[in-house]
């Protein structure tokens, strides 16, 4: 187990395996996203309260889920990199940030487009929306911090501390709709017991969430391969890896 782990973490081996894995995440993600677009836009019936506006959920909720999930992956990788001085973990953390920031933006933008017809406003400074906006600033702050430090190893360590401290925001976002009185509706999928959403509406949503997650894995691997190269000083394997 450990030898396998060390082998995977070795840059040349990782670079090759990651390259092979990308289509295995990318294509299922593509198929799932296209299928759930059809399921969400065509097959699912309109909501009895929100009409067709509820269909925004199929892009809003998966984006919001990704914004949190990617942050947790980023913070955990940063912690592993910091504790075990593992370059690959730092490479993963650094690669997560731009992807996470983009999904946070998507969650905020689609949320505004949903808020306007349902609440009559694009934006309110309530707990859920404000904490999600802070998440966007955490991602951007992390990226700005990295960009401001020339030395890659020092950038890895300094930004890792920021990523780990910022993880406190994740449970705040998740429970904000429960802890505070907010305009944002309570979760309809993860509720204990039966979800408060019908099957024909739920299935495309779950498929889209899975599709987005696999999509993230594929895009992450593309970026991590680049980050691994940036941390590599051995000319021998760079030539080997890139000539193959």
């Amino acid at each position, binding site marked *: 187990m450990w030898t396998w782990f060390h082998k995977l973490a070795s840059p040349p081996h990782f670079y090759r395996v990651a390259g092979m894995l990308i289509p295995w995440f990318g294509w299922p993600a593509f198929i799932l996203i296209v299928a759930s677009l059809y399921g969400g836009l*065509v097959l699912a019936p309109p909501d009895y309260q929100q009409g067709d506006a509820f269909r925004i959920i199929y892009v809003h909720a998966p984006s919001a889920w990704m914004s949190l999930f990617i942050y947790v992956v980023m913070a955990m990788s940063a912690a592993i990199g910091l504790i075990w001085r593992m370059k690959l973990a730092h490479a993963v953390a650094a690669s997560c940030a731009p992807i996470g920031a983009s999904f946070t933006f998507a969650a905020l933008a689609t949320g505004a487009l949903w808020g306007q017809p349902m609440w009559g406003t694009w934006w309110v400074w309530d707990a859920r929306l404000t904490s999600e906006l802070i998440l966007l600033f955490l991602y951007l702050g992390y990226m700005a911090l990295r960009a401001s430090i020339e030395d890659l190893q020092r950038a890895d360590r300094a930004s890792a501390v920021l990523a780990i401290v910022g993880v406190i925001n994740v449970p705040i976002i998740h429970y904000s709709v429960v802890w505070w009185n907010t305009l944002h509706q309570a979760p309809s999928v993860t509720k204990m017991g039966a979800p408060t959403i019908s099957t024909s509406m739920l299935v495309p949503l779950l498929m889209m969430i899975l599709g987005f997650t696999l999509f993230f894995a594929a895009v992450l691997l593309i970026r991590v391969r*680049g980050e691994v190269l940036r941390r590599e000083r051995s000319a021998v394997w760079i030539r080997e890896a*890139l000539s193959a």
Partner: protein
Amino acid sequence: MNLVEFINMGGYAAFVWPSYVVALAVLIGNVVAARASHRRAVAEALRRAQGASS
């Protein structure tokens, strides 16, 4: 279901379609940006490897 009805989205077209456009733009943008980032890293690595050998 007819197409006009579908595009009209029960009167919410102005909100439903832009949100799907935003999401798709973010997905496509991620693929483009990740590939560009990898390409840059390859070019830099090759330059370093060349510098080390000469």
